[in-house]
C-alpha cells in the first residue's frame, strides 16, 4: 500500500499512531496517540479542526464494486471521534460537526449528515442514512433531532494543540505550500 501521508500545517498528529495509505489531515486537527487510520480502499481526507481520540479507528474499506480511481472518504470539519470509536466506510462523505461517542461503531452503508451524534456504544450496522442533526443514544437506538449543530470544541482543540507537543512525539506537517483551505477544495472536488 502506498504510503502517502499529508499533514497540513497546524495539525497535531502524534507519532504513535497507525496511518496507512493515502491520508490527508487538515490543519487544526488533533490526532491522539494510538489512533488507527487505514486508507486501503482509497484516500481518506480529514478536514480541519477534527479531534480524533485514542484508540479510534477510521478505515476506508476495500469493496468489490469500487470505482477506478477510488473515491476518497471525506470527513468534514469539526468532527469529534471519541475514545475507541470505529468508522468503517467504503466511500462517501461524512458531514461536519458530528460526534462519534466512545465505543460507537458506524458500519458500511451508513450515510451521515452534519451535526449528528452517535451515542456511546451504539452499533450502526443497518444500512441507513442519518439526516442532519440526528442524535442516537442507548441500546435501543432512540433517536431525536437536535435543533442545532453540536457546538464546536475550539477551546479543547486549542488546549490540545498546546499541550500535546509537551508530552508526545509529533509527526511534522509535510505540506507547506497550500494553506488549510486545501481540504475544502478537495471536498469540492468530491
Amino acid at each position, binding site marked *: 500500500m502506498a504510503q502517502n501521508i499529508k499533514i497540513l500545517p497546524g495539525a497535531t498528529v502524534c507519532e504513535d499512531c497507525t496511518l496507512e495509505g493515502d491520508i490527508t489531515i487538515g490543519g487544526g486537527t488533533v490526532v491522539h496517540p494510538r489512533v488507527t487510520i487505514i486508507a486501503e480502499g482509497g484516500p481518506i481526507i480529514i478536514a480541519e479542526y477534527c479531534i480524533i481520540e485514542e484508540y479510534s479507528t477510521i478505515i476506508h474499506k476495500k469493496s468489490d464494486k469500487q470505482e477506478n480511481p477510488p473515491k476518497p472518504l471525506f470527513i468534514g470539519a469539526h468532527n469529534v471521534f471519541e475514545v475507541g470509536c470505529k468508522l468503517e466506510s467504503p466511500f462517501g462523505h461524512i458531514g461536519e460537526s458530528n460526534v462519534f461517542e466512545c465505543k460507537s461503531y458506524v458500519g458500511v452503508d451508513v450515510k451521515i449528515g452534519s451535526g449528528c451524534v452517535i451515542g456511546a456504544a451504539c452499533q450502526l450496522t443497518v444500512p441507513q442514512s442519518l439526516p442532519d442533526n440526528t442524535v442516537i*443514544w*442507548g441500546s435501543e437506538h*432512540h433517536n*431525536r433531532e*437536535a435543533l442545532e449543530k453540536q457546538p464546536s470544541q475550539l477551546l479543547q482543540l486549542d488546549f490540545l494543540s498546546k499541550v500535546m507537543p509537551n508530552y508526545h512525539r509529533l509527526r511534522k506537517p509535510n505540506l507547506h505550500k497550500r494553506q488549510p483551505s486545501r481540504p475544502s477544495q478537495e471536498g469540492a472536488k468530491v
Partner: protein
Amino acid sequence: MAYLTQPDFVRYVCSCGQLKPITNLYFCRHCLKIRCGFCICHEVDSHYCANCLENMPSSEARLKKNRCSSCFDCPSCFHTLSTRATFAQTRQDPAAGDAKVENKQAKKMYYLSCFNCRWTSRDVGIPDQPVASGGWPERPNPFSARINQLLDYYKAIAQQEKQEKLDRERKKFAIRGKYITLTDKTGLTGAMARNIAGLPSSESSSSAIANFVPSVASAEVEELPEDYHLREINLKQVTTMAQRLASPEWQPASVARLHPVARPLSVKRSQRCRACDHNLTKPEYNPGSIKFKIELLAFYHMPEVKIISHESVKPGQQSALLLKVSNPTSHEMALRLLPPDHQAETETDETTETHEKNEPKSIEKSLEKSLNLEKDTTWSKVIERKPQMPALSQICIPEVTLTLAQRDDAAEYDDDPQHDTSDIILWRKSNKLALRLKVSTDPSAEVGQPAQVALSLQYSYRNTVPPSAQSAQHRDHTLTTTVLLDLGTVCE
C-alpha cells in the same frame, strides 16, 4: 451465596416459607427467626435526592411533591440534566449610553443540557437563566382550576350530606329527650334561623353548590384536519409513551413541548420485624452514607453455605458434593446436619422454647402481644408459603456434630489449613469448614429435570442482645435452618 447475574444456587427457607439467597435475608435477634423482605414491615425513613444527595425533611418533600428543587431529569431520555454556563453578551439598550460601560462584560447565563441525548433546554425555547440553580419556569397544570371547582363542589355536597345526617340524628335525639329546645318547638333549625335573620349560612357550601357549572357537552368534536393524511410525518417530532408519562400532568405529544422534569426523590427505608416490632435495619440519616445504624442481616448470624463443586447428578447414582460452611458470628458454633424433613419437628421445639422465654417478659410487652395477636395470626396465615422440597435427590447425612470456630479477622492471613480432616471434613480453616458429602439420587429421576437437594442445619447460636433486667434470658440457643442447593440438572 448470591450473584447479581446468575441464578441463586443456595437458597435458605425463610420463616415465612419463601426461598431466598442469604444476602436477601434478615435475622431477628428477638424472635430468633429468619425474616425476608416479604414478611417484614417497610417504613419510609428519610427523603433525599439521589443526584445531589441533599436531605429533605418529609414535610417539605410533601409540599414539593417529592421532587428535588435543584436537580432535573432529561424529558427525552430521563438521564440527569447538567447545568451549563455560557457567556451571553448582555444586550445593551443603546439609549443607556456609556453609563454602564463596565457592565458590558459578558454575563454568565445558564441552561440545562443532557449529556446522554444532547437535549438542551434551548431546544424547546426555555430562556437561559441568570442563576445556576433553580428559577426554571414551572408549568401549571392546565386542568387544576377545573379540578379545584369540582373539589369545592363535591366537598360542599359531602358537607351538606353530613349536616343533613347530623340534623336528622339530632332531631331524633331531641324528640326522645325530655327537654324541648326553642328551635325544636318552633320547627326552626339553626341554619333556617340564620337564614331568616339574614345572616350568611353557616357553611359556604351552598354557594359552592349553586355556583357550580357542570361540564357542557358539545356536538363538535375536534376533527383531524382534512389533509392530515397527506402530511409527511416525522416520528422524531412525536414523543414516545415513556416521554409523555414522565410528566403525567401534561403528557406532551410533540417533542417541542418537552420540559425538564424535576428529579423525583428517593427514600431510605427502615425495616421492622412484624412479629416483635423491633427494627431489623435502620439506615444512617446522612444520604451519602450507605451504612446502617441497625443491620440484622442473616449473613452476620447464620452459618453460610456455599457450594465448592459437585459431580453431576445422575439417576440412581451417588455423586459427591463439596460444601463450604462458615461461621460469621464471634462465638464458637456447634453444627449438625439433619435431613430436611427433620425441620418441622425441631421447629415446634423451637416455638415452645421461645414461649418459655417469652413468659418472664414484662407485662406490658405481653399485653401488647396479646393485643396484636389477632392481627398477627391473620397476617401470617396469608403470607405463609409451603416451599417445595425436592424429593428425588437426598444428601446422605453424616451423624456427627461439627464445631466451627468463631470468626477471626486476623486468621484470614493464616495460610496453612488445620489438618484435622476426616472422611467428611475436607479441610478446615479458621471459621470455615469444607465438607465432603454424598448425594444419592432416585433411579426414577428424569434426565433434564432440575437437580436440587435440601439440607437442614442445626446450629448453636449465642444471643448477644443485652438481657433485660428482670429476666434471666437464655443466651445459648439451638436453631435450625433449611437450605436448598441447586445442583444443575439431572444428567445421563
